[in-house]
């Protein structure tokens, strides 16, 4: 099969251009809530770029892979979300 059709998400994201900020624009408001997540880890499941992971009893956030869609914070109120600082984050060449 062709390259475009068998790529992993990591390879896909290599094609995108990011300017990574030093601090995350995503955070978990109350990490204790995640331990008994009432939404079956919806943040992990709806994210198109696999930013959220469940590791060692907490949600970890790879914010530098975030394309700023907003699906996470709409699906779960425990996800804190703001726009990255001006000029940072995803910068589409096509869009």
């Amino acid at each position, binding site marked *: 099969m062709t390259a475009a059709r068998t790529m992993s998400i990591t390879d896909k994201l290599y094609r995108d251009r990011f300017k990574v900020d030093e601090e995350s624009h995503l955070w978990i408001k109350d990490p204790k809530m995640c331990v008994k997540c009432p939404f079956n880890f919806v943040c992990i499941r709806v994210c*198109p770029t696999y930013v959220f992971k469940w590791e060692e009893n907490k949600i970890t956030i790879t914010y530098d892979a975030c394309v700023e869609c907003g699906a996470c914070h709409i699906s779960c109120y425990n996800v804190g979300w703001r*726009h990255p600082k*001006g000029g940072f984050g995803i910068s589409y060449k096509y869009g």
Partner: protein
Amino acid sequence: MAEKFDSIVVGAGPGGIAAAYTMAKAGLKVLVLEKGEKPGAKNVFGGVIYKYHTEQIAPEFWKTAPIERRVVEYQYWFLSEKSHVLLSHRNQRFNNEYNAFTVHRAKFDPWFAKLAEDAGAVVINRTTADDVIKENGRVIGVKTERGDALADVVIAADGVNSILARQAGLREELRPDAVVLAAKEVIAIPKTRIEERFNLGPEEGVAAMLLGWGPGMHAGFMYTNRDTLSVGIAVSLRDLDKSGQRPNELLEQFKNHPSIAPLLQDGELKEYSAHLIPEGGYDHVARVYMDGMLVVGDAAMLVNAINWEGTNFALTSGILAGETVIQAKKRGDFTSRTLAQYRQKLEQSFVLKDLRKLRNVPSFFSSHPYFFTVYPDIANELAYMWHVVDDETKDARFKRMQSTLFKRRSKLGLARDLFNLWRLFS
């Protein structure tokens, strides 16, 4: 940045730029703040821009704007697991009187923003406005990381995730059933090959919507650009949650469908993107005005999900917001009293008329998901049975087709669906 402007527009997408252009052209002092490194850097759509509405700002824009192809054919694919039924409309009138153009937003939006700049607006990139400044309950400016900026009227054109509309109290948090997540790829394929695969002339293009074969409210889209294809899936956040599948998995599944894969063959991925679309319709439209502030485009949830129209809603709401601020400036009144005119203008235009007309459509389809699942399947089964030639008599075949149909959806259910569908649009 203590300087005061007549208006600050937050967001340099089509809505914000239409507003800025309208006001700057009338001589108002306008500042546009864009969080991306340039206009369009954060923007994603299917998609197309429409001739009619874009011409309200830029007559004959296709002669100079970075457009990809003019759409001459609209395709509606109904997918089943290994098959499709295709309905399509191609018309030479789309070649003579243009209707829509495919564009890449990261290329088109900077061109469009330049128009506002040429008209006198100041566009500042790399600047995130993350809160409004209020005085006695009235919006008087915005806070940015570069400092505060003041204006008589702030226009929030900051897109579907509008922080400003929320901070100002004009909008609730979005609901998962009122937004659709789109995941999209731009795939490079040589120009001539695109034209062969889609049977197109050199500047002609196709806009395709694909239904079926997915979880609930779910659709695929495909647009031909000059030497790339825009291919993606759109699924409501609620149904995505229920589906147990990841957006990227749904997209891969869609790209590997036996009817789609040959169109993408040997393509090279150029970009992967994702964005939300506010498809909730009329009942989810934000409050669009308050003292010192207006909201336009996606930030106000102005999208027609049925006809896949959005950029035209953004443009038109931007122009109407701009006109309202011009009026307010003449009167020297920037309170709700004058700014309420914007809501009236929206009500009188196709923007809220269309959304009102289609008001029940989003909830109808979300409570009748089988329009996206069962019906495309049935269409494929029946089409297959119609075409297979063997020793079965036609009498037996037609009876079997009927029973296949009614097994999937009862006669009563079918009649009710048809009636409701008719009522929805009449």
